[in-house]
């Protein structure tokens, strides 16, 4: 996987750049980045949500899916190749699925609100926004757990520590000479 992972990362970033270019070239929509609130100076309003997503909704959805994948791949890149076991990939894959589900629920919740104009609330926020606030925060918690709980298994094993100590000892010898 060593030789391939950087190519996967490169492909993802190129695809994301391609999506951004496609969005830049998409049919422009007035006030797509918001507009001044008519009643309250200093506030911006979003206005027509459906119109703002009409030409770029799918592209933006894909952009975020790629970004979630990129984050997981970058975490894998940070793990030494010999520690990138099937177990690690299983955990990282699970994290990716979880984060994509959160993103999909958020996006779908927003779409549903735009169509119906109604929403339920969860812990103080409209459901779609709750997916963003709580879901996005929690969707990366598995990465924190993999790092912290799997530290001695994937990140810095006893063997790694021994190797590093040997390197340091070698360096100290060189300095003394």
């Amino acid at each position, binding site marked *: 996987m060593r030789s391939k992972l950087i190519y996967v990362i490169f492909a993802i970033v190129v695809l994301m750049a391609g999506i951004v270019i496609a969005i830049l070239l998409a049919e422009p929509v007035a006030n797509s980045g918001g507009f001044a609130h008519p009643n309250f100076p200093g*506030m911006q309003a979003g206005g027509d949500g459906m119109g703002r997503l009409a030409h770029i909704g799918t592209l933006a959805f894909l952009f975020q899916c790629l970004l979630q994948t990129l984050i997981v791949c970058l975490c894998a890149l940070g793990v030494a190749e010999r520690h990138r076991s099937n177990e690690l990939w299983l955990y990282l894959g699970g994290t990716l699925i979880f984060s994509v589900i959160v993103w999909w629920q958020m996006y779908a919740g927003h779409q549903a609100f735009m169509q119906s104009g109604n929403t339920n609330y969860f812990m103080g926020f409209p459901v*779609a926004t709750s997916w963003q606030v709580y879901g996005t925060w929690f969707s990366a918690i598995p990465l*924190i757990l993999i790092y912290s709980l799997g530290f001695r298994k994937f990140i*810095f094993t006893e063997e790694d*520590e021994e190797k590093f100590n040997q390197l340091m000892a070698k360096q100290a010898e060189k300095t003394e000479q």
Partner: protein
Amino acid sequence: MEAYRQQIIIGAVLIYMIFCVLTGLWAMKRTKNASDFFIAGRGLGPIVVSLALFSSTLSGFGFVGGPGLVYSIGVSSFWMVVISSSGYALGFFLVAKRIRMIADLHNCISLPDIVAARYKSEAVRFLMAITIVLGVMGYLATQILAMAVVMQAIMSGTVMFADISLVTCVVISSTVLIFYCVTGGIIASVYTDVVQGAIMMIAGSLILLTAMSVFDGGMQEATSIILADDGEAMMPFGAAGIMASLGWFFVFGLGLAGQPHLVTKMMMNKKIGDNRSILPMSLFGYIMAALLWISIGVIMRAAVIDGMVPPLALPDDAASVFLSVFTNPLLAGIVFAGLFAAIMSTSDAFLNIGTAAIIHDIPKAIRGHSVKNELFWARVVTVLLAIVAASFALYSHFRDATLVAILGAFGWATFAASIFPVLAIGLNWKGATALGAVTAIVSALIINFVVQLAGIVLPYGISGGLVSFLTSFVLFIAVSLLTQKPELDEDMEAVMDI
């Protein structure tokens, strides 16, 4: 108690500042050489590093600009906050272990030292140092100005200091900052960060509780008021739209691992194994403190729409108006101390890395060695850098506001675009080359400068930061793949295998 509101607030801020001065004096005894001054001799425990790391992440922007952004654009700005779990995870997966190992092996005391060792290139060191100095000037100037503006607002509420000038406030706040940074270097900086972090966490959680009691129906009533006024503002992409939001996710999430003042702190812990506890503790602290960002912004937008509070003159007034209208004086005192803590904890980190770049990295890149008597010159340059930044902030405030805006371009996004690929990818991919690194840094600087200077507004809320980050990322890998694979030193090869 209400009658003494201003006095209580000033008292809280004064106690905090006295603490900073005393910490500087204490840390001075422990600062014996340049390594102590810049990276605390790599001897800090996990709690200290965790608190220092998160408190430096959440600058004055988080306490003033953050709530202002929620007030202004609604939920869009939440994306800068909710990425923290991904951002911290990436920072630790990609940077924390290897930066610490390289720092140990090569006796590095700065980020340019690390990249110079990794790429065996003085050009990369030089460009990294220049990027840091430019960024530090912009960041420091805005932080010092923010500190002075807040201090003026607090002091002018009393009879005795009603006419206090902005210049006086810049002098007072900068003096405290300079004092503890010069005397105690990074040791004073990180230990003040510990208290600063604790204050920020307490302030964040207390503010959330207060915010939830403003409306009878709690947070849900506030969000439903905003939703009824403008549905998009309270939906996941806010008023700024989906691409602005996702762009922030990208730039702030990935970019955390490219912030020099943060990754430098990853070189300071005593043991590499401490990283396993530093990561969750930093994230927890950040989330607690960031509650203030979200809750004040939402409540203030709802309160203005509902007619409970008159419209704000400026969105950045959201936090100060909230504190004066909805909180008791004691809490306001804690939060204002927290605000100074947030500003100072970021400023001291920038002063430190800026000084390292000037006295250590730029001379090393040009002449092959740093200045003699580094500790002495570190103290001198810290003073000079702070004075230049303070003067620059005042000049920009009174004469030419565009100067701060231009250097403001060297904010988070520029650091993210120019440093993330070079550092975070470069430490984990043996195929990364010096030419790839130079290309990434130069392209990031040029794009951010051009977008900022030309005032280019991209469609669909796409930010220049996102464009520059993606470009530098693609160029870094592409150029590295196209150039000859570098021969790494034996020890660097070994570090990258661990």
